[in-house]
């Protein structure tokens, strides 16, 4: 499965970059995120409750960040397992481009999924992923620009 999109965030690039690396902010923005802890500068551990069609599960996973492209780009790879519900692994490349006071965020994500998620979700997984990604960036935009939220 592959996803890509482009979002304009009402905040300057350095602020956006910092926020994307702040576990507290990420935790607020990731739909269903219950825990997000920083193990090191480039490693995070997460627990996320997810529902794809009839499959509902709590995923535990690890995320590895690659910040060598800072402040214009960063990459992340990760894998998670939801027990009987299935498992996923994947990654995303994110680029940031300043646009005056705003930032254009582009991402390309790839994921491989297995287990019940893949079976039941085959026709739901792309739309659900898009919805989740949309929700994340909605939340993120609100956190970055609280006034615009209302």
């Amino acid at each position, binding site marked *: 499965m592959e996803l890509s999109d482009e979002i304009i965030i009402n905040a300057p690039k350095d602020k956006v970059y910092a926020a994307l690396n702040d576990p507290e902010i990420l935790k607020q923005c990731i739909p269903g995120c219950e825990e997000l802890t920083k193990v090191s500068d480039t490693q995070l551990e997460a627990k996320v409750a997810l529902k794809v069609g009839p499959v509902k599960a709590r995923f535990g996973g690890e995320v590895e960040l690659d910040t060598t492209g800072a402040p214009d780009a960063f990459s992340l790879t990760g894998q998670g*397992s939801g*027990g*009987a*519900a*299935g*498992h996923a692994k994947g990654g995303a490349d994110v680029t940031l481009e300043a646009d005056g006071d705003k930032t254009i965020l582009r991402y390309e994500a790839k994921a*491989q*999924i*297995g*287990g*019940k*998620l*893949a*079976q*039941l979700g*085959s*026709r739901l997984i792309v739309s659900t992923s898009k919805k989740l990604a949309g929700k994340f960036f909605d939340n993120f935009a609100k956190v970055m620009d609280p006034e615009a939220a209302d």
Partner: protein
Amino acid sequence: MKDDVQSSDDRRASLKGLGSSRKRVEDARFTQGKGNYVDDIKLDGMLFGDFVRTPYAHARIKSIKTEEALKVPGVLAVLTAADLEPLGLHWMPTLAGDKQMVLADGKVLYQGQEVAFVVATDRYAAADGIEAVEVDYEELPVITDPFEALKTDVVLREDLEPGADGAHGPRKHPNHIFTWEAGEKETTEQVIDAAEVVAEEMVYYHRVHPCPLETCGCVASMDKVNGKLTLYGTFQAPHAIRTVVSLISGIEEHNIRVVSPDIGGGFGNKVGAYPGYVCSVVASIVTGKPVKWIEDRMDNLMTTAFARDYWMKGKISATKEGKITGLWCHTTADHGGFDACADPTKFPAGFMNICTGSYDIPTAYLAVDGVYTNKAPGGVAYRCSFRVTEAAYFIERMIEVLAIELNMDAAELRRINFIKKEQFPYNSALGWEYDSGDYHTAWDKALNAVGYDDLRKEQAQRLEDFKAGKTRKLLGIGLSHFTEIVGAGPVKNCDILGLGMFDSCEIRIHPTGSAIARLGTISQGQGHATTFAQILASEIGLPADSITVEEGDTDTAPYGLGTYGSRSTPVAGAATAMAGRKIRAKAQMIAAFLLEVHDDDVEFDVDRFVVKGAPEKFKTMKEIAFAAYNQAIPGIEPGLEAVSYYDPPNMTYPFGAYICVMELDVDTGEHEIRQFYALDDCGTRINPMIIEGQVHGGVTEALAIAMGQEIAYDELGNVKTGTLMDFFLPTAWETPHYTTDHTVTPSPHHPIGAKGVGESPNVGGVPAFSNAVHDAFRPFGLRHAHMPHDHWRVWKIANDLGLHS
């Protein structure tokens, strides 16, 4: 007597014996929701077990943590391979001579494989417990392609000695299971090399699933006081299951009672032994309570007994005039993670060597290589005799491809190559003795019935209209002439796990002239209680309505190998007739005594014995039954009972001619079946109404397989078609009208000449549907396209042929 005035025809009709379209006695309970299926069984204190299944298709198991699961309210136990190992039950033998993990022992080999068994007070608590079991997997490379499996360094079965022989001879590769050959390799290759015309094709019969409406399940109940185990389950072969349970558990066979209650369809899915059975038995022994296990739909589609997955590479040679000279086939058979096919021991590729079909092919060679992959095990005969649909599909496709090569009409090509009536019994190049047949008569009847010549004219006109842009629909005429091989089988050739494939019937006549017959088979919807009573009615002259047929309880029924491969009528039906004849032989002696004449001076007349030449002097079977119990007859012991164990001298060879007329929309890929004509010759017809029902059901399953049904995997080994959203099961909406017809060519060796019909429609139906699709596109250069012919794939055929530009 009041029936004195009845003619023998009237008396015959009132028996409702052979040839009567007697209504199914089972339907009173089925249509009122009063059937008794395994999930209807509820015993005091019964627990429920369910499986933790692997989401990975190939992985090493690093740890299984059950502590949290045991804290879930209602969860009583969690079994893993470590718990079963001390009992020697963490692996079990398969019906194909391989062994299979009961619970994952160190690694898993396919998605959905059983990892742990959670036992709880109800199904919901078990599901919660499953969620709480933590399994740590280490992913391994996944092999879903059998050709890659034979090249890769990835070893799937680490439990097997790499170079050691398998159950069926040498293995060429760690992922190779067996090579099985039939016929003459060198001669066939010489004939094909020297032939005037040769057609070559790779024919894939995709992976499908029997998908019975009722999934597999069981209830195990161990009575620890008496040491008796009762096992209720969806078993197509209850007696064989009892023997297997005894052999692997060490419980003596007399202490095991296996009961198959009503079964909601089997189609081969319920022949094998599954981890659920073993785990339920162990859980019942451990907890001292009855334990139920019932698959859900996903479990069923993902794990228990798939069918087909045969890659059949073929070459067929002929003279310029179209006389076939040779057939060569090499099959790569994908068996999944374990070899758990249910084939007779000497036939690891089933009866695939029936692949010369209905044709007189002088030279042939077949080789089959079985291969392990990261897919579910199985390879069962889904509504067919062992690998017979594969064989029929292969030859019926090869004939069509040869017709293209010869630029010949495919109906005519078949006609000039059919085995002729006078050639029966016919010895095929691959080693079978066909018992009887009259293919030309059936073929001509079928072609006339559909108006074949007019259809071809209409098709030619349609093609012109299509080319002229007047229509976007093509017309396909799908031909199929199949020969089945059913009724396994002669014990000298056929056994499963060493159990000879005879079958049995035991009859007890009651004093008032009614009877109970018990058989070693088990109905899964075929209507045995209706048809076996009819066989008996004609043999013993008591009305079918006065005969109870009982099957499926190993404590009461005689031993038999069960119901699959269309073997019930050819084998158990024969046993029923033979047991009936024993009854009749004793009845003759009793009648002679009562009529005060010599045994040889009475003869059987429908429902009575009459004195030869004096038909007014007679004793009815009813009177004889009463006398058998209540009158002292010198030299004859009281009672009227018989048992027969029947070992057939040969298989039976039902055949038929099917024709499908199909419209195909080249822009949407949709099909419309305009006409489907099915002519079956199953020898003597026991109940024409039941035959028609069998044909309707079988053709509908064939429609499903040819036009959409598949078990598909992605490259990670995920089953992509694990629910009925994705796995095509036709409903009334997709099912066309069928026209049924018949000819009657009795089997010369079967006591009543019957051959079995339940599976013919699937065997003959699949090529008829598939050939119709191919035939529609033949003028545009299509030779072969793999099934299933769903809308997308048909659209793609049209697109690849440039019909969209």
